[in-house]
């Protein structure tokens, strides 16, 4: 039961990608990990698999600060196609920004379930994924 979730990472930072993937794998938290370097790539993937619940992520760790399509821009798109989804997807915004403006902005988007400040700690990651079951 522990690792049947699809975890989606959307972040342009290679090092972050490397560390979080490594952490998830080490903790054995995911059935599958998908990594996108910007919002647009993730959006394209999700639209391609809009009815494919097997491929769609259960949880998204979304960076705010990205080229092409940043986290908030992605959320705009996500909100548009969300009604077509048959799957409950939990979205966390993960950012190195401690700017209260960014935090406030994230809180105002109802589809964002939480705001996590980088670096994300292994225990935090674990409890989030475990709580998806609840």
């Amino acid at each position, binding site marked *: 039961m522990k690792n049947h979730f699809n975890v989606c990472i959307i972040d342009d930072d*290679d*090092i972050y990608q*490397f560390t979080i993937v490594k952490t998830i794998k080490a903790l054995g938290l995911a059935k599958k990990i998908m990594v996108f370097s910007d919002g647009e790539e993730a959006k394209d993937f999700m639209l391609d698999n809009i009815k494919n619940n097997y491929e769609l992520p259960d949880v998204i760790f979304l960076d705010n*600060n990205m*080229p*092409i399509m940043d986290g908030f821009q992605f959320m705009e798109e996500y909100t548009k196609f969300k009604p077509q989804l048959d799957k409950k997807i939990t979205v966390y915004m993960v950012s*190195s920004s401690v*700017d209260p403006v960014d935090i406030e902005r994230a809180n105002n988007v109802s589809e964002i379930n939480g705001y996590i400040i*980088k670096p994300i700690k292994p225990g935090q990651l674990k409890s989030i994924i475990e709580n998806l079951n609840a």
Partner: protein
Amino acid sequence: MHKAIEENPKIKNTLERINNVARIGIWELNLTTKDYTLDKITSDILDLKNRNKINLKETITLFKDKVHRKNIKECMTNLINNGDSFDEEVALETITGKKIWARKIGLADKENGIITRVYGIFQEITEIKKTETQLHSVNSELKSIINSSAVSIVSIDKQGDVMQFNSGAEKLLGFSAEEVIGNLPPTSILLKDELASFSKEFASKFNKEHIQNFNPFYELGLQDIKDTREWTFRKKNGTLFPVELSLTPLKNDLDEYLGILGIFYDITDRKKAEAELLKKNQLLNYAEQITMMGNWSWNMISNEIIWSANMYNIFGRDPKILKKVTFDTYFNHIHPEDRKEVSNFIEITVKEDKFTDVLHRIVLEDGTTKTVHLLGELITNELGEPIEMIGTCQDVTQLRMAEIKFRGLLESAPDAMLIVDEEGTIQISNKQAEKLFGYPSIDLKNKPVELLIPEKFMHTYKSNNNNFFTNIKTSETEKSKELYALHKNGEKIPIQISLSPLETEEGLLISVAIRDITEQKHSEYKILKAKERLEVLTDNLLNKNRQLADFAHITSHNLRAPVSNLNSLLGFYNSATDEEDKAEIFGKFEIVIGHLTETLDTLVEALKTSNGAPTELKKLNFEDILNKTKEILTGEIEATNATIISDFSLVDSVLYSKLYLESIFLNLMSNALKYKSPDRDPVIELKTTLIKNRITLTVKDNGLGIDLEKHGHKLFGLNKVFHRHPQAKGIGLFMTKVQIESLGGTISAKSQVNEGTTFIVTLN
């Protein structure tokens, strides 16, 4: 007889003397020679200077009047031919031209039917003739008076019968002379009442019992009294009319009473005029009462003053008691404090021959104090000496009280107040006005308001005023206008004026309230200055704040991200067991540290730039900078086959930092080359213009373009990239912006995806 005279020398002498006095001369005509022989008197009368001979023909020419000449010619011819004697009065002129009247008597002696001698008497009668003429003219004048219809004359003899009844009387009374002459005058002419009272008056005057047959007219004659009074006469047709009748007793030489002469004339018009005058006088009295005004005249020679009825009212005196008014009467009423002023005034009036007006107080007998306004005129005789003053005196106590109240109101106003008339002439000013403008009130009276509101500002004032007068109804509400006033010392005072109309009997007046707003202006200026400083400060603060926000953003994203990565990597490194993993993680460390170093370097440079590290400004030629940039980018330009078009004709140079301008050119051009469209060769157009006096550089490309709706907000941010491009690092535009802004410029962009981007740089 003739002979007897000649023979008696004594008689002859006597005769000659008489003749001399009576101017009687004698003449004889020689029938043969037709020469006159004249005695001395005749010669004198004719001014012949002792000539005793003169020819008949010559004498004829002396008669200038044709009728007289003809007459004397005939007389002489008849005398000579027929011996007809004559006695004629003739007018003639002597040879010296003197006009005289003469009496010429001609006689003839006949002997046997033949005329033997012609002689006569010549007497000068000029004086007699003159008297006669005068008498005649007086007579005819009298006659014309008696016969005139302007005066009516009736005379009555002592029996009471009418003797004369002239045409004037006929005309006035309607009776004909025939009807009344010789009869008693018609009793219907006089009114019974008037006759009765006339009788009574005379009866009592002469202590006669007033009895039925007492005749006052007879009595008048007896007592030799003349009486003139007004009567009411009744015409034959019954109409009544007023007359003035003068009764004069008629007497003969022996002072015997003959009758009475009555001369009368119609005074209807006079009565009418009198009634009119009376009415006018009443009206005047009435008017004087209403206006509380009296009139007076002062005979300065007799020191007699005549007061109109209302003058007595004003001074609270009874005309029945105060019979004679003199200057002292007036002077004693003057308030003791005002006496000197009034005396001075009168002195000046007499001296300068001009009466203006004076306001002074009077004290009545009961102690009441009044204020009167005295107006007058000085009347002088032919020598220019004052003989009389006439004028009016108005009780202005109430007006004065009102004025005092008004003054009080005016003085209590916090602002300087001027009351001006329609011409803009100052009528009244208050103490505050004295203080504000530096002129005493007396100096302001009757001065044009321009004295205080200088010419320069009068246009506004006048146009305001015009507007004000023409739209008096609509602008009754206060009008405020800020203007400058001129102090006596020439100082300009900022003022605020409120105008409001005052309707008075003398016409429209305007009250002008003037407020000195120097303090206000000063404060305003200070506030304005403070506001300017605040604005500058706010701008600076905003700038700093923005920089701080930028910096916070940069630390948040660009510094925290690698640091958190380092932390994560460090965790893995510590927990890693095999060397291979450790080596991999270490490689990651190097990448992160590399990024971090680059970011820190950029930040340091940006901080240096935006903190305004003074850069040397030089006059730079755009063409030179472009050429240098092209050199640096030679490789890229050739590789991309780019075309570069430049137009610096409008502005060819700028005062700028050389380093920054080169960097701006390099960044914008390398961006244009870097983000070129894969479908076409890049074309870069550079152009300088002046926009709102600021040198503006535009760099336009035909490259990929940016979706500004999506990315506009982070276009100039640090490490922002919008293209999945291997060389996109997001430092260039950030630094470009920092550089431009540090020198007071701005940068913005316009772009269409797949069409190209235009950067607009305002350099200064």
